[in-house]
């Protein structure tokens, strides 16, 4: 019978099926970080258990870490304790930790792929919803809660019901100034923040196949923002080329064996999905969000919807409330509106390619005086590469501030926050109320659109700067 990419990986990992219930799914890789793991370790200790397969767990500190002076003790006491607890737990349970000061430290979804830990055909989990990122390699990767982190510690398994499957096909060529972040913001705007709940999504089509691994990761990363359990893309030559020679990728004869296996990982031609969506790449323009969930997005040069034109009452109320929080007017365009902050970072857009894209646009230009621009590489390795490639010089000349690796202003948990009432064009993934700090107003966009606003100080159609 014809199988989907998801089926092929799923079937290989089912330990057993419970009648009338979920399946026991074996987990190959388990990433952990400081925020969602401490209670799981505590639970394990309370039951007198060890981590069953510590060599399949990899830890890093990312959410809570400062992005300045990482060599100094963390000032915030609670954050320091949480990071300290991770160090102790990893020691106690023999888990490899890429913590602060380690050359591999960084945002968990950036370091897994860049170290070659993330591989096609795997099942991967982490106590973090953006685990969907790893699906870009043709893996089943999804976020879990802390009780589930404890389950994987104890048994290397999870109880999971098989999700429904959706395929989103994007065919054709992308317009100038349109990058992978725009594709995913476009999809979420089209199907809404809950449009894929209950589904696992495969992205396919010529536009997806033409993307680099980093661009694919951006798309899979935001699958969760439309409610999907995860997103995935079939591995191909671009995937294999990216993986070759990475620190933990298979080497020598192992590589050849794995490669043969990976080449079978694609949906069969006649495989069927519970739902399919077709999108024409040419319809996608640079995108921006205006509301307080990632589904409230528009083309950057379009107007915010006029609320009285929305037929559904619940939807109308939502948008009304979102606009009130955002301080924006229905029916008006965003173009030309001043912003006070630009944040380039997060597990969505903090990889070297994102930063190269920004550098290429801002080279020889300077930021607007009224904007503060923060660039936060996703990992120590990305930071190193930024320097090796001389991108730091470009950013400094442009007046951008470069920080050290971490989640930073993606969520208001560490010191990097956007002040209440101010606007931030952000390359991150969530524009929820207070996400970047209490009262902060977030406009999600691509690294290009964010960089354009940094230069002009206002919401800008990046295509004007690309002429």
């Amino acid at each position, binding site marked *: 019978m014809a199988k989907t990419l998801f089926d092929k990986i799923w079937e290989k990992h089912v*330990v057993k099926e419970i009648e009338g*219930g979920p399946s026991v799914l074996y987990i190959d890789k388990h990433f952990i970080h400081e925020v*969602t793991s401490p209670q799981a370790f505590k639970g394990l200790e309370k039951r007198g258990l060890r981590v069953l397969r510590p060599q399949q767990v990899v830890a890093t500190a990312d959410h809570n870490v400062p992005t300045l002076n990482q060599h100094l003790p963390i000032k915030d006491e609670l954050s320091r304790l*949480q990071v300290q607890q991770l160090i102790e737990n990893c020691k106690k349970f023999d888990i490899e930790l890429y913590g602060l000061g380690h050359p591999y430290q960084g945002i968990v979804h950036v370091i897994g792929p860049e170290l070659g830990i993330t591989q096609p055909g795997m099942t991967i989990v982490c106590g973090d919803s953006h685990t969907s990122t790893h699906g870009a390699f043709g893996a089943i990767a999804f976020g879990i809660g802390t009780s589930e982190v*404890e389950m994987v510690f*104890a048994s290397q398994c999870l109880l999971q019901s098989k999700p429904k499957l959706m395929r989103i096909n994007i065919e054709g060529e992308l317009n100038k100034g349109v990058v992978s972040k725009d594709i995913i913001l476009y999809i979420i705007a089209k199907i809404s923040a*809950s449009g894929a709940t209950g589904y696992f999504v495969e992205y396919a089509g010529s536009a997806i196949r033409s993307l680099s691994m980093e661009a694919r990761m951006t798309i899979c990363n935001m699958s969760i923002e439309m409610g999907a359990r995860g997103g995935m893309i079939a591995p191909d030559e671009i995937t294999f080329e990216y993986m070759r020679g990475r620190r933990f990728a298979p080497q020598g004869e192992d590589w050849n064996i794995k490669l043969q296996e990976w080449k079978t990982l694609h949906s069969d031609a006649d495989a069927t999905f519970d739902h399919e969506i077709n999108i024409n790449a040419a319809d996608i323009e640079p995108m921006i969000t205006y509301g307080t969930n990632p589904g409230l997005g528009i083309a950057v040069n379009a107007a915010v919807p006029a609320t009285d034109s929305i037929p559904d009452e619940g939807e109308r109320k939502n948008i009304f409330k979102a606009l009130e929080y955002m301080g924006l007017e229905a029916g008006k365009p965003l173009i030309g509106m001043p912003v006070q902050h630009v944040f380039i970072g997060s597990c969505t857009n903090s990889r070297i390619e994102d930063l190269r894209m920004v550098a290429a646009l801002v080279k020889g230009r300077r930021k607007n005086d009224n904007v503060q621009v923060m660039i936060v590489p996703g990992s120590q390795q990305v930071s190193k590469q930024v320097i090796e490639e001389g991108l730091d010089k470009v950013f400094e000349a442009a007046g951008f501030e470069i920080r050290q690796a971490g989640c930073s202003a993606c969520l208001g948990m560490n010191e990097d926050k956007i002040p209440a009432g101010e606007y931030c064009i952000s390359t991150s993934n969530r524009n929820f109320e207070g*996400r970047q700090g209490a009262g902060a107003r977030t406009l999600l966009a691509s690294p290009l659109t964010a960089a354009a606003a940094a230069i002009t100080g206002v919401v800008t159609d990046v295509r004007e700067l690309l002429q």
Partner: protein
Amino acid sequence: MKSLTTIHSRFVPLPEENVDTDQIIPARFLKATTRDGFGKNLFRDWRYEQDDETKPKKDFVLNNENYSGEILVAGKNFGCGSSREHAAWALEDYGFKAVVSSFFADIFKNNALNNGVLPVTVSEDFLQKIFAGDAKATLSIDLSAQAITIDATGEQERFEINAYKKTCLLNGYDDIDYLLSIRQEIELFETSAN
């Protein structure tokens, strides 16, 4: 986990859609290393002015003394966003035993079930009927029968729950107990997969 069979209680209405976990428990409260005490920060930024506990926002439902109870009733797509289980811990710690909505985000639903908070999915119609009802009205939730009733009118709807999860909740088992019991099968799987 405590076992859960029936809940009979007044309810707290929150007719908002897409209530995300950043609202249920903002990120700055995730620094704790234990599971306790999150209830006091439940819906923190909707509950207080300027993050100040002495300044409750009067129009927010948790500050409205007309409403109380062990059941939260919320608009569709409740619990979307971050995977933080702290959201389920905060609801549980505050005293909620069930959340009723017409649609739940996946990860939240699992997290709730793993903490003995019952997510009850009802039709949009039924949800609106609850919202339209009296502030002092009560609801009855019967897990064995998989039914929720608006007591005043007797209107009832059945809700779905996975048979395995239902047994767990009714008996107060959790998944780890089960997974530990099949340890040998897991090890066999590992050997055969390699």
